[in-house]
């Protein structure tokens, strides 16, 4: 290696080819850079990617029956699902019911079964309690004697589905579908259909809020961009003050303003525009949700728009006008296209925040102003049906990603500017 022939690789002082030593130095730099971002990367993995993956998984996970009635679950999986299973399955279930009831795990099975078969929670817990009290080993006869539903194929076909380790039933429920007795996928009865309409409503309301935000924010941002610094700073504070104020305070002030006995209605009655019995319902409905959400999300539109407009030199407009364009033409052909990245950034911020918004619709949405996130929260906190909550969340996530993809195709994500 000491001897170098003409035309051979260039060597550094230590005699290593320059290319290799350069690559080494670069690798070291890369490793150092990676080391610096590693904490953040780990943070994102642990707090963002992992919980989301877990949530999506919970939407199909179906462990209850296999975990708490393991033998019966295995026998059910082997069963062909026609009519009623063999006597041995009944006996095994009776045995495991008694055992699970003693260990206080049967309630979980009961809850899971009740999601699929309304009214079966007490069937399971009661059967468990009765079987537990028996002096002898529980048998098929004991189980069937407790309730006639144990002799019906419907109950067993649901149980067979629950014995599988994974299930589609949460995702089906999230799009208003269900399994019938034969295991075919059918629509929910009409009185229980709710989620598809809610998804569409959430989508439509978020689009409406985004559009309203663009309309309202554009003039403000423009004014802030062209006014002298002193005045525009004042405007900026006016935009930021609500931004810094607690969300709950702002939402409650809307209640004070808009309720039927509120400030706005009082003024309308006082000026005689409406009669005292003709007070307008402006809150606890969709109007309330839209008004309060537009107000709360407006700064997310103003700020990116402003930062983009600030960089547009006023000389472009002057040049366009001096070339003979009318103010409107100059605006549409010269100014507006330059602000599109700001509109894009603001819109995507506002839209994504709006589609997952929860607290404001909960407070001012009343009956008709509820969005899908309110139902996800409901299933997380009230009904404890975390599987359904996960499925609804998974669909929402997929929807947002799909919209993001469409947006990228139409507008281009590079064509977006936050400042």
């Amino acid at each position: 290696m000491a001897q170098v022939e003409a035309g051979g690789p260039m060597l550094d002082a230590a005699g290593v080819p320059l290319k290799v030593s350069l690559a080494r130095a670069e690798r070291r730099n890369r490793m150092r850079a990676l080391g610096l971002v590693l904490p953040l990367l780990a943070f994102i993995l642990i707090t963002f990617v992992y919980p989301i993956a877990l949530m999506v998984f919970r939407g199909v996970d179906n462990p209850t029956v296999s975990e708490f009635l393991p033998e019966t679950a295995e026998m059910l999986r082997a069963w062909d699902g026609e009519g009623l299973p063999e006597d041995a399955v009944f006996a095994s279930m009776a045995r495991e019911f008694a055992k699970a009831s003693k260990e206080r795990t049967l309630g979980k099975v009961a809850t899971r079964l009740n999601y699929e078969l309304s009214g079966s929670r007490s069937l399971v817990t009661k059967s468990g309690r009765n079987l537990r009290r028996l002096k002898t080993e529980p048998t098929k006869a004991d189980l069937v004697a407790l309730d006639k539903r144990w002799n019906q194929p419907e109950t067993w076909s649901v149980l067979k589905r629950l014995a599988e380790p994974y299930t589609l039933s949460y995702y089906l429920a999230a799009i208003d579908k269900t399994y019938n007795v034969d295991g075919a996928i059918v629509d929910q009865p009409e009185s229980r259909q709710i989620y598809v309409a809610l998804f569409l409503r959430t989508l439509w309301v978020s689009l409406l809020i985004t559009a309203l935000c663009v309309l309202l924010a554009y003039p403000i941002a423009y004014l802030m961009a062209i006014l002298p610094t002193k005045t525009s700073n004042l405007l900026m504070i006016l935009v930021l003050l609500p931004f810094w104020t607690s969300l709950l305070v702002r939402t409650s002030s809307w209640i004070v303003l808009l309720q039927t006995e509120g400030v706005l209605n009082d003024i309308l009655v006082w000026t005689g525009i409406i009669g005292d019995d003709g007070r307008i319902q402006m809150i606890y409905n969709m109007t309330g949700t839209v008004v309060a959400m537009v107000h709360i999300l407006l700064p997310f539109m103003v700020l990116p728009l402003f930062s983009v407009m600030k960089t547009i030199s006023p000389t472009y407009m002057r040049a366009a006008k001096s070339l003979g364009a009318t103010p409107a033409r100059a605006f549409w052909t010269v100014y507006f296209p330059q602000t599109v990245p700001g509109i894009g950034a603001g819109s995507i911020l506002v839209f994504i925040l709006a589609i997952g918004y929860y607290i404001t619709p909960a407070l001012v949405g009343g009956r008709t102003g509820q969005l899908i996130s309110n139902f996800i929260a409901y299933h997380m906190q009230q009904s404890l049906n975390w599987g359904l909550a996960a499925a609804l969340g998974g669909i929402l996530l997929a929807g947002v990603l799909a919209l993001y993809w469409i947006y990228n195709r139409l507008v281009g994500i590079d064509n977006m500017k936050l400042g």
Partner: protein
Amino acid sequence: MNRMMKYTGAAVVALSAAAYAAGPAAAADALTVVSWGGAYTKSQVEAYHKPYTAKTGTKINSEDYNGGLAQVRAQVEAGNVTWNLVDVELSDAVRGCDEGILEPIDHSILPAAPDGTAAADDFLPNTLTECSVGTIVWSTVFAFDASKYPDAKPTEIADLFDTEKFPGKRGLRKNPKVNLEWALMADGVPLEQVYEVLGTPEGVDRAFAKLDTIKDDVIWWEAGAQPPQMLADGEVSIASAYNGRLFNAIFTEKKPFEIIWDGQVWDLDLWVIPKGAKNMEATLDFVKFSTDTQRLADQSKWISYGPVRQSSFPLVADDVKPHMPTAPENFKAALQNDFEFWADNADELNERFAAWLAK
């Protein structure tokens, strides 16, 4: 740079060591008792917590929640139980026990009544369950703003659904519970048959059809503190509410509301202990203390919920007695919330109720 890192690291270690040392020590001294907030939590703090701290020196942290088992379940499943004692409704006490997220409580530890009656006989029937100890009887009733109805006043459950005779917005809880029962009562179903009828698909249809008649006149509430506020604001003229909250608004805040006891749906509140809660001994000691005859009677000074011990009734002040859900004249047309019916049907009826609301 290196030195700075070292110091920061040392500081972090020292801080976390301090936090670790302080954590268990604080937990050993204090109990975290969780309840529904507002006037109700205040009554518990005055009647149970303060006297207990005065007697034993054990500090009690009072936390608020909005009911349900979600937080208990999350704590138990995560293996990090920070609550010692939770105030829940009967349906949740039974369901939580079945699901194994609550500790069984041995009722023989509860103190006997002053006259020697054993606790098991002193407590009202069904107020002691495997994992819980009852404290109060509360009730969902409806009330109206008397200033809105100077002539004829609403008197019975059917008036709640009669917007022609009694115009004005209604405030109802955003939950099928109680509303469906009331709808059937107003539709002429006798009290004792309400749950039987509601157990059939036709009965559910009938209840929803009755609710349909006032759907456009209802403003829905979720937290117990809301309906008195909505009545006070004039947002609604008639509202369903928990009787203790109304008592508080009428007698403490002097609001012109009147309670209608016809068709009241009563329920229990009970103490439960999340599975794996720390400091069991002190927690059980507090349970014993707070459910003795005197303490349950004391609570009625602060809120008009009925004590679950028979020996507490005579100790309740005379001016509060007529406002108890269990007072004889209020109890004439009273229905007990059927926790088993709701345990079975809540999943389906909640969905149907939500679908009905959204339409």
